[in-house]
């Protein structure tokens, strides 16, 4: 491996809400991706507009970045609180940047390089409270060996809208920081590489929005709820250019039903929310299933129950999704594993929902949805194949009285005529109904017809597994340990597996994305050949542990569960594996070191 591939650098910026942490984060991200480097940024924040503690970690590598990592290399403190919380975590050889006028360091390890910035002097006593951020960015450029002009370019782009005076002010103070750094601070020891080509950057929510647009969504509806609101923002910003109707409405009940109304006319419709909003949507999901109308519902999970911890991640809604809505019916549930997967999943799910005329649920979480990740623009296909299933939009000679919206066909799927099509008038109903949509409860409730309809709707899905790839083992087939995960844990588990390999433990991973339908046979076969099986998930009760047992009969050997709101760091998983292998414990719960 070349030195370039080993480059691994984590920058953390901490301060109170309102201190403008997002902007330096964005600027650094642009600088890195334009240089072709890959990044993974995780923002720890609270449900507060001013105050509190925000801690943004940006990790940069010249290869895929699978998590926000185990260490920090550069800490930028915008307030004293950040210094007090995180200085003790800095190892020898790392750097700490801070406003030397107002922030005092405390106890720290030997060999940590303190980089105080005399902000008042460098900015000519500028009263703007955010100016220290730009000074610090300038100093960072020096530390990392990046030419100042690179920062100048992104500052110009970022602040251009605010006028030349603002751009000039920022460049001036950034340069002052750069020169002060050059005069006073030793550079970082590793050399910042350049990647093979420029990349792009997105959040999971943007990927979901883009996936919807690529799938041809024409109706997006939402109620703001952390951490899903980013999808609404992306959609709203792009609505006019892409001709998508975007509506923010009065509550999630309106959202979840409006999308069905829209979808009934033939458009692809989608919505996103978090667990609490999803709870309000569940009645509608059953309605979509009964009326056989395709809609995509996205749940970006966050720590619950109830209002929970709105800004923290969890994988706690698996059973809510499985049980969404009353009655006995099937719905599609998929948990994408990273942002590119999230992007691709939306069109894939829409094709399935259109084909099977049913609702589909995407289970994302805060970690994916609000994290910022680099991606290769060439890997994103915004014109994927679109399959609308059996829809009727033009009359083909069938008179009204013969069209049966819920015709009991061999494969269970009944051709769907769209409103406005002459000759196919019909009513769709949430009551049980016969083939001709007449309510069975309007006549004598009819057991024969009822049974036939229940079977028809279920029969639709008989062959669905043929359309969806089964999960596969990633890593050596004969590994000592098989780590099982679902959704967002795939990348961090992969990184833990690398760490374990370095310490002589062989491990592989079974990362599961499709919850319903579930590849029972394939999963059972894989796990029956595994040695020690450990399930990794972000919840307390082992939601996927139980689901796996439920669908396969297999009880995995042990679990690693984290439910403090913070995502897994790779060492949490690797340490857990070592401990579980050393003893008989069934559960390992890692401790969170970074206090946010």
């Amino acid at each position, binding site marked *: 491996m070349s030195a370039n591939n080993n480059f691994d650098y984590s920058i953390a910026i901490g301060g109170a809400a309102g201190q403008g942490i997002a902007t330096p984060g964005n600027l650094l991200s642009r600088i890195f991706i334009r240089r072709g480097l890959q990044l993974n940024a995780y923002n720890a924040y609270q449900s507060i507009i001013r105050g509190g503690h925000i801690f943004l970690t940006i990790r940069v590598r010249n290869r895929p970045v699978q998590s926000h990592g185990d260490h920090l290399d550069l800490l930028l403190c915008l307030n004293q609180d950040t210094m007090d919380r995180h200085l003790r975590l800095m190892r020898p050889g790392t750097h700490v940047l801070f406003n030397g006028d107002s922030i005092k360091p405390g106890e720290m390890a030997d060999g940590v390089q303190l980089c105080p910035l005399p902000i008042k002097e460098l900015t000519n006593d500028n009263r703007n409270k955010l100016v220290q951020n730009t000074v610090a960015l300038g100093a960072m450029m020096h530390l990392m060996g990046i030419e100042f002009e690179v920062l100048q370019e992104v500052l110009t782009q970022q602040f251009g809208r605010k006028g030349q005076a603002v751009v000039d002010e920022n460049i001036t103070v950034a340069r002052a920081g750069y020169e002060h750094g050059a005069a006073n601070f030793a550079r970082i020891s590793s050399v910042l590489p350049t990647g093979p080509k*420029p990349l792009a950057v*997105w959040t999971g929510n*943007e990927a979901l929005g*883009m996936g919807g*647009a*690529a*799938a*041809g969504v*024409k*109706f997006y509806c939402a109620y703001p709820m952390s951490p899903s609101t980013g999808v609404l923002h992306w959609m709203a910003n*792009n609505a*006019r250019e*892409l*001709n*998508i*109707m975007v*509506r923010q*409405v*009065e*509550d999630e*009940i*309106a959202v979840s*039903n*409006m999308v*069905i*109304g*829209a*979808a*009934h*006319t*033939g*458009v*692809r*419709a989608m919505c996103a929310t978090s667990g609490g909003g999803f709870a309000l949507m569940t*009645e*509608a999901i059953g*309605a979509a299933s009964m*009326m056989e109308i395709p809609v995509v519902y996205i749940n970006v999970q966050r720590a619950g129950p109830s209002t929970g911890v709105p800004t923290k991640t969890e994988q706690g809604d698996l059973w809510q999704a499985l049980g969404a809505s009353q009655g006995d019916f099937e719905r599609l549930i998929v948990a994408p594993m990273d942002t590119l997967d999230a992007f691709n999943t939306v069109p894939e799910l829409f094709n399935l929902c259109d084909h099977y005329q049913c609702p589909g649920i995407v289970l994302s979480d805060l970690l994916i949805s609000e994290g910022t990740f680099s991606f290769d*623009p060439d890997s*994103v296909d*915004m*014109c994927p194949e679109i399959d*609308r299933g059996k829809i009727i939009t033009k009359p083909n000679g069938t008179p*009204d*009285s013969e069209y049966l919206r819920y015709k009991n066909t061999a494969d269970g799927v009944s051709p769907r005529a*769209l*409103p*406005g*099509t*002459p*000759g*196919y*008038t019909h*009513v*769709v*109903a*949430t009551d049980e109904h016969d083939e001709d949509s*007449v*309510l069975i409860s*309007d006549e004598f409730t009819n057991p024969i017809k009822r049974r036939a309809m229940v079977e028809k709707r279920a029969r639709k899905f008989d062959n669905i597994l043929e359309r969806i790839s089964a999960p596969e083992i990633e890593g050596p087939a004969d590994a000592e340990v098989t780590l099982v995960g679902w959704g967002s844990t795939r990348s961090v588990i992969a990184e833990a597996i690398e760490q374990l390999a370095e310490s002589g433990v062989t491990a592989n991973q079974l990362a599961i994305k499709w919850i319903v339908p579930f590849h029972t046979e394939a999963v059972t076969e894989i796990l029956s050949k595994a040695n020690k099986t450990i399930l990794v998930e972000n919840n307390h009760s082992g939601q996927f542990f139980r689901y796996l047992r439920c669908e396969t009969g297999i009880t995995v050997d042990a679990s690693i569960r984290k439910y403090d709101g913070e995502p897994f760091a790779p060492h949490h998983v690797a340490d857990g594996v070592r401990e579980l292998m050393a003893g008989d414990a069934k559960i390992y719960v890692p401790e969170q070191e970074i206090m946010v």
Partner: protein
Amino acid sequence: MTTIEDVQRKPKDYKSKINPDWCPGCGDFGVLNALQRTCAELDIPPHMILNVSGIGCSSNFPGYFKAYGMHTLHGRTLAYASGAKLANHEMTVIATGGDGDGYGIGGNHFTHIARRNIDLTYVVMNNQVYGLTTGQVSPTSRTDMKTKSTPYGNIERPVNPITAAIMNGATFVARGYSADGKQLVELMKQAIQHRGFALIDVFSPCVTFNKDNTYDFFKPRVKKLQDEGHDTSDWKAACEKAMEWGDTIYTGLFLQQELPTLGDLEPVLAEGGPLAHQPVGLSNEDEQRIIQRMC
């Protein structure tokens, strides 16, 4: 030479193959007949009508009406109707349902759709009771009414749907009476032709569960606003008339204003026809633009 297409439609052209299962004497029959006559007089093709209902006796409506229809969830009628209208604004969307469905569980949607002014018509069959669940109070039940859920008498005051609609910004607010088909047809025609959200609250007596607000109750009381020269642009007068509930109960058009509909204000609907008819998917230019912003 006249052809099939030239012949005006008749009310029976909007009759589905199912007969309503409403109790004999139910006010909803009058509303169904009136809407069928209305659509015939306006000559709207059945395939261009979308009837949307919730749950309740009156929400069975779409099944008896030959057109496209959605029989949805209790209280969610207006959400479905809004979504459908915005996605295919060429359809004539008519929402139907009862007073509980519309003003109780559906109250939040009712509030917001009024101010949004989405171009659709909402016909509420107001019988001041919950019928299908066999006789409990509804949001419009009178104080003191004895029902299965209020055996000692209702201690709450009813909501006034007319003033509520006016205060929430509805641009067409009317009240009808199911026994006065002629007035109802007139109001329905105006409502459908009105550009914006149109409410017609219709007294539609429940002969089985509401022994208070019967035909005998309404007949001597209902008076037409239009017979008294009411100014339909005056919201204050409209509210005062709407609050009269004694020997006189007003029916007719309370308020009408011309304001832009949500469709008028939404640039995405300005050109290109209904969203439902537009091509699905992005162009290469769209793709370039989107990706470029993330670089």
